[in-house]
């Protein structure tokens, strides 16, 4: 087990810079998920930690020991690949035993370790079979077992869910998280799926265009996204984002499409005037009512819209509303009665509304800024 530290790490392929100077620390035993769209530099970052890619500049260390130039075989990292990399003509047992035999462990020791890891992953039943006929989820577990059996100091997973059927993904997410709890080794998982990140991570590192957008716990990344990118990438559906403007000396933000938002004074001070800012709110942090039955007090965020579409999801309902050219999602509990093209009023509490500056960075309320500084 080991902590991992990156300092100003960059990766260049020819003239394109895939990773543009990232620094972060992973605590010993932590499960970090690196999340981002394809091409954001997340896989390059993972491969540099594994030693499979050279670092263009900057340094990487494990528990304070520099490993920047150490070859992958001597870093004691285990990596489970996207396509599992299983040997089809070997039994599952031999597949898992391979890294141990490579190190010259005696037969008794191999059997003990493989049996233990197989029990942990509940694959004891298939140890004698060959991987060929097994399901994606099962193969995934075998890949994990082979990586885990070596007691690596850092355990890396590259898109572990990508070949697993949608209905099995939830099970596998829970499984990986449970394995992490039991094994306690440092784990880094790369994924493009925000739900993978929310459900598995101790902390999420959100990347875009080779840079770190945010590094925080799932709850914090969801509740206080640092940038509009994070806000629009996390959540299913993601946060609604509207451009807005504050007039000179005004204490109200006018939203695109005619709505308005009165931020608390502590936030208002930090909002620039005369420039386009972005206002955001989560689909489930919104109230929606027919315009006719309007009861909302003034002062909160309010905007008039029409229902664009209603999508029931069992115990909750997704309502898309249209306001000018913008469409917003509202996530309501139960099965409320809304009809298409019905005029509605959307309201939200101040505490649930986020404001981002013209560069897309989050503007915090003055009191939380102070709290964060302290």
């Amino acid at each position, binding site marked *: 087990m080991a902590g991992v530290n990156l300092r100003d790490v960059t990766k260049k392929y020819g003239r394109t810079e895939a990773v543009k100077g990232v620094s972060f620390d992973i605590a010993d035993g932590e499960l970090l998920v690196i999340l981002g*769209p394809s091409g954001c530099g997340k896989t390059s970052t993972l491969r540099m930690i594994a030693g499979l890619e050279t670092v263009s500049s900057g340094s990487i260390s494990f528990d304070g020991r520099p490993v920047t130039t150490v070859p992958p075989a001597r870093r004691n990292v285990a990596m489970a690949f996207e396509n599992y990399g299983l040997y089809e003509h070997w039994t599952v047992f031999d597949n898992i035993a391979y890294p141990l035999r490579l190190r010259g462990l005696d037969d008794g020791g191999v059997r003990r370790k493989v049996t233990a890891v197989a029990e942990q992953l509940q694959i004891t039943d298939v140890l004698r079979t060959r991987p060929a006929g097994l399901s994606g989820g099962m193969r995934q577990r075998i890949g994990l077992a082979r990586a885990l059996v070596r007691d690596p100091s850092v355990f890396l997973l590259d898109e572990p869910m990508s070949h697993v*059927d*949608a*209905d099995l993904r*939830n099970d596998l*997410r*829970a499984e990986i*998280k*449970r394995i992490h*709890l039991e094994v306690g080794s440092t784990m880094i998982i790369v994924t*493009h*799926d*925000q*739900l993978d990140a*929310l*459900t*598995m991570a101790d902390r999420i590192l959100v990347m875009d265009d080779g840079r770190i957008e945010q590094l925080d716990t*799932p*709850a914090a990344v*969801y*509740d206080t996204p640092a940038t509009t990118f994070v806000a*629009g*990438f*996390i*959540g*299913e*559906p*993601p946060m609604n984002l509207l451009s807005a403007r504050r007039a000179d000396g005004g204490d109200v933000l006018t939203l695109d499409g005619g709505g308005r938002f009165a931020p608390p004074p502590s936030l208002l001070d930090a909002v620039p005037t005369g420039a386009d800012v972005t206002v955001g709110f*989560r*689909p*489930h942090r919104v109230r929606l009512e027919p315009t006719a039955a309007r009861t909302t007090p003034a002062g909160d965020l309010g905007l008039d819209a029409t229902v*664009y*579409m209603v*999508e*029931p*999801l*069992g*115990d909750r309902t*997704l309502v*898309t509303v249209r306001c000018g050219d913008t*469409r917003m*999602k509202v*996530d309501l509990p139960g*099965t409320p009665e809304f009809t*298409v093209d019905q005029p509605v009023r959307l309201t939200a509490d101040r505490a649930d509304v986020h404001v981002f500056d013209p560069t897309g960075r989050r503007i915090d309320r003055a009191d939380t800024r102070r709290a964060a500084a302290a």
Partner: protein
Amino acid sequence: METLTVTGVTKTFGGPRPAVDELSFTLGGGEFGVVVGPSGAGKTTLLNMIAGLVPPDTGEITLDGASLAGTAPERRDIAMVFENYALYPHLSVRRNLEFPLRAPVRRGTLSRSQITDRVTQVAETLRIPHLLDRLPSQLSGGQRQRVSLGRALVRRPRLLLLDEPITHLDAKLRHEMRTELKRIQRELGVTTLYATPDQSDALALADLVVVLDAGRAWQVGTAADVYERPANVTVARTLGDPRINLLPGRRDAAGVTVLGQRVDADHGPAGPVTVGVRPGDVELSTEPLAGAAAGRVLLAQTLGYQDVVYVDVEGATVRATVPAGIVARPGDPAWVRLPAARLHVFEAASGQALRHREVV
């Protein structure tokens, strides 16, 4: 507004079991039907049979009352959107959209200017006018998806088939396209059949849901039917996210025993049952609770808008959803209560439903 009927359709490709097995359902004119099931359930085979690309072994498919047997695919006037989009890579987006209008079967029905008008119109509906002169290889996944949909809609088909059209888009686009699809279908009123492995598509879009698994239809009904009143364990497991808890129990004349607790949920001849309870219906407490089973937290996950807590109760894992931000740590003691009114009960051996949860 064409009604689609599928009656006793079976197709075997030489495997041990049929790919589609005695399938029957009726999709009303202008309705949105969704076939939901895992990969390998037979969804694509079903759509291919309706399109005429694969002949069924037995059974009948009719559109607007007339049998489709013996009608070649090019004469059925059925449009299909394929999972891989299947655009014509050597033709520009405009030519792709014109392609069905210039087909031999429609020769002479549309003038040159009418064709241009139709293409312009569908491109505007799908917000792709700026892409008309590009080749498919120059488009993103989401743009290809729109072109593919445009090509299907431009000729106003009698029936629209969609085979996992949004599966390969990222989460945000998938949501946008799903909403768009439902809106467009509603405006055009074209009878639509949509195949997907994603249960939320089925609930969100469907007037009629066909739950398909291993080639069989396990239930045909409205979205509310299959979600609130699943006919069997397979349907209960397919619909709902996070997935329904299915717990072993016993039923007798006095009620049901599950997780070691008596619940006044269903009465009947003594025998083993499977109790189904949606994670949102599970009552979870960190304090002892009357009528609750004691267990331990296995792990907690956040979905952002809510958290899912996995609790181990005497070897059974129970999933419960709780509002986001409630801290549950692995190893913490927890108490789980299953409210009698919210339980589904299934016969253990057959999986058939004996009782459904009461709607609140």
